[in-house]
């Protein structure tokens, strides 16, 4: 947290320390999301909500400052306060943007990792139709990276091609497996995404990889030691996510003729030689817009698999085998989600959303229903 606070002060100092003619050019804007939800069953839990009405999991406020240092160079910071972090203020984005040509720009700093179609505007609920992005797909535990990104726009006939190439590192506390926060570190992360826009249709592909993925699970430290002690060091090293190769691939499309829309995304994530399963995630969504309101529905699915489980995770001690199986069982996600939502435009720049999401966990046979409502706005 100290890091965030000093980064905030640094960012604020950077902006207010600019020469006065540049300060006049600072553009302030912002957005917010006031959301509340509760599950319908007394034991139900979903997306951080339980059976008590809660405003904290998804409520957030953000303020963006953008200053032009020259015609081509701008500095942007986005400060965000999230209910899920006790409304502590943090720097969500902070970057320099250099406009290389009319069609190419370079960003440097703390940026959003563009895994999914809506990664960029993930926190700006106002910019998409859902109350929240489909959690079957939007489930990688970290959102940001530090590094560079190059963006390019090209017009070919009636097509617009938007390409983005990124390189950098991820360092973040994430929720993985158990209840304790784990340190995630991804080094040498490189990749790209490309979108083709043709009239109302957007098609997108994305691919990222790293040869150095580390997601340390504190809960399994003693297990790893025990495995090594009984001579099952190979199982221990298969279980650990340490300096492992990771890859992410995604495809998706969105068709929106402003009357109605339909879209889908499919992603696949793998971290070789680790407890992290091969994750296959998908959703399909469709909706219809009316004068001042809209109606939409989304179906999602997660389908995880521990590849070669028997070969990699067989332990000669039954007790330890049980614990290993528990760890692996805890990280595999096989669930389906269905949701319906209705949105009302309440003012220019503000929308009220109501959503009911039903989830079905195939492994535990648990079924949860979450009802949520939100006001999302930009200014």
């Amino acid at each position: 947290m100290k890091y965030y606070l000093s980064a905030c002060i640094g960012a604020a100092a950077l902006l207010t320390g600019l020469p006065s003619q540049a300060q006049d050019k600072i553009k302030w804007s912002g957005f917010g999301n006031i959301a509340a939800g509760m599950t319908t069953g007394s034991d139900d839990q979903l997306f951080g909500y339980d059976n008590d009405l809660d405003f904290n999991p998804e409520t957030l406020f953000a303020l963006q400052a953008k200053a032009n240092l020259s015609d081509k160079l701008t500095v942007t910071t986005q400060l965000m306060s999230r209910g899920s972090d006790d409304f502590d203020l943090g720097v969500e984005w902070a970057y320099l943007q250099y406009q290389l040509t009319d069609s190419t720009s370079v960003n440097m700093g703390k940026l959003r990792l563009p895994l999914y179609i809506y990664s960029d505007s993930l926190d700006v609920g106002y910019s998409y139709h859902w109350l929240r992005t489909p959690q079957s797909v939007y489930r990688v535990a970290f959102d940001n990276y530090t590094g560079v990104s190059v963006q390019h726009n090209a017009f070919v006939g009636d097509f617009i091609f938007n390409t983005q190439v990124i390189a950098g590192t991820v360092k973040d506390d994430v929720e993985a497996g158990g209840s304790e926060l784990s340190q995630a570190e991804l080094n040498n992360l490189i990749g790209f995404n490309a979108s083709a826009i043709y009239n109302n249709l957007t098609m997108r592909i994305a691919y990222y990889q790293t040869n150095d993925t580390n997601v340390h699970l504190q809960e399994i430290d003693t297990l790893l030691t025990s495995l090594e002690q009984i001579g099952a060091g190979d199982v221990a090293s298969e279980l650990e996510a340490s300096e492992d190769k990771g890859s992410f691939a995604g495809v998706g499309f969105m068709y929106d003729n402003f009357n109605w829309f339909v879209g889908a995304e499919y992603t696949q994530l793998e971290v070789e030689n680790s407890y992290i399963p091969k994750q296959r995630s998908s959703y399909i969504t469709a909706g219809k817009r009316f004068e001042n309101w809209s109606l939409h529905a989304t179906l999602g699915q997660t389908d995880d698999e521990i590849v070669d489980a028997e070969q990699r995770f067989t332990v000669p001690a039954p007790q330890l085998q049980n614990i290993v199986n528990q760890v692996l069982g805890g990280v595999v996600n096989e669930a389906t989600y269905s949701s319906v939502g209705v949105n009302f435009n309440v003012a220019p720049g503000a929308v009220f959303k109501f959503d009911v999401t039903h989830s079905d966990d195939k492994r535990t046979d648990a079924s949860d229903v979450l009802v949520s409502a939100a006001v999302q706005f930009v200014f």
Partner: protein
Amino acid sequence: MKKLVVLLILVTASIFSVPASAQNGVVVSQTEIDDASVPRIYLGQSRVLNGVNLPEDSAVRKAFEEKLLGQSGEQLKRHWAKLKFTGRATPLNELNGDDAVLEYVLNNPQGIGYISDKSKVTDKLNIIATF
């Protein structure tokens, strides 16, 4: 009664005069470009020229957005929110009326704008599109 009739005529006239004047809308620039570039500039996808907008509550802007961009104000607000908060584009500057837009495009060879009244266009400017 007479007053009522006059009032009715005035109201009717004002209702019909809105679409009539809207049909006079033109997109103008000193630079000659393809009309396909207009939606690209106003949707934040292209920077070939610097576009300027009229205020959000302006009827001319509404007509321009619906006819040439094929989108409502609310849809465009969502679109620009996404661009603005992801660093993909900076919102276009807003000027307060036809005269300010004309002054801007006359002083900026790289500028482009739209106005409600075709008859105000001088021969220094190109008409890129009408709406």
